[in-house]
């Protein structure tokens, strides 16, 4: 649920679930492309957070 709206959130998956999926099974599809991008972006943000935290 989205606490601001008390409605179900439109997001369909938790990132932790995405990381567990076997993307080889849908290789070449738009969905595989999107999931790969999602994970790469999450990793970039994690790295940026880690850099930020280590600076203080």
């Amino acid at each position, binding site marked *: 649920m989205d606490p601001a*709206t008390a409605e179900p959130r439109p*997001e*369909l998956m938790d990132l932790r679930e995405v990381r567990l*999926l076997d993307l080889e099974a849908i290789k*070449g599809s*738009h969905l*595989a*492309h999107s999931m790969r991008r*999602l994970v790469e*972006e999450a990793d970039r943000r994690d790295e940026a957070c880690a850099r930020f935290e280590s600076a203080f």
Partner: protein
Amino acid sequence: MATEWPAGLDVADLLRRGWRPAPFRQFVVKLHGRCNLACDYCYMFHSTDQGWRSRPAVMSRAVADQICARIAEHCAAHDLPRVAVVLHGGEPLLAGATMIGRFAVDLRRALTMSTAVDLSIQTNGILLDERMLDVLAEAGCRVGVSLDGDRGGHDRHRTRTGGQGSYDRVMRGIRLLAGERYRPLFAGLLCTVDLANDPLRTYEALLESAPPLIDFLLPHGNWSNPPPGRTPGAPDAPYGSWLAEVFDHWYSAPRRAGVRLFDETIQLLLGGWTTSEVVGLSPYRTLVIETDGALEQVDTLRSAYPDAAATGYHISSDPLDAALTHPALVARQIGAEALSAQCQRCPLRNVCGGGCYPHRYQAGAGFRNPSVYCADLSWLIRHIQARLSTDLARLTSRGAERA
């Protein structure tokens, strides 16, 4: 206009509450302010805003130099590792190969080693020839071209000043760009949706040159000046169903080209991030610089009312940071706070993000309204959501079986 939102937006209060503007990361530079086409839907030349008439046709060397220095100043102040500069118009290729090449060299020289620049140009394709493409290749400048589908669809709106269609000339340029020699420069195609065009024929025509990316643009309009075929507030979704038909075709096939609107919607539905202007709630971080050096908001705002894109700042007297706290630009960076009450309550809020900002305008109220395309966006997002849900259920059950 003083009562129209965001004119009364209290930026000082936002700053007191801890909000901070995000620095610009895209600069749209108008090297040339005139065009060699006379497209009937053009927001630049055929809207109520006729500001282009009082601006110089071509950017002066002095203004171009100031732009390079100001962008460099902004990048250094905010420690930006990468920015995008988009050469735009009018028709930017009218500036000529020499000016474009010189600007690219000056820009890269002005930016320090710590900031990379993604340089691109958005053109109607008429002047794309080998000499121009050689200069763009030398400048490291990628090329996006406007093409509205097949000949019939394209020539319905994108005409020469004499009324004849531009399709043949544009396709000549696109074929050259998409060929082996210049292909690395090919950034993609921009297509304005027309309900009179068959969606699949339009999409297939765009795919012919194998673009890496396709951008579908909804015709600009708002609650006071509705887009063609869109009755404000009506529950039907002509544009949503047009796009959904393309989505199904695109999504069912192996990935050949990205379609920005679909890719970004999928990212948001999956809980990811986007920098799109059209969907989502990410801060919008683009600044436009006119041929005379005026700092402006996105051009498409011209479709709302005259001077809607103005900020009052100028490259010669103001650092780019000045524009970051202009209420109209702040309104593009505060996410859900900029949305109407109806959008705030909507379960699709985080994905839709209220839609493209100019499409929210209503005379007398301003920009704090749902998009005039609300029904279409809702239709399309729910359609994509349904397709994804089915596939994800299949994928996760397959994973569970293996486990």
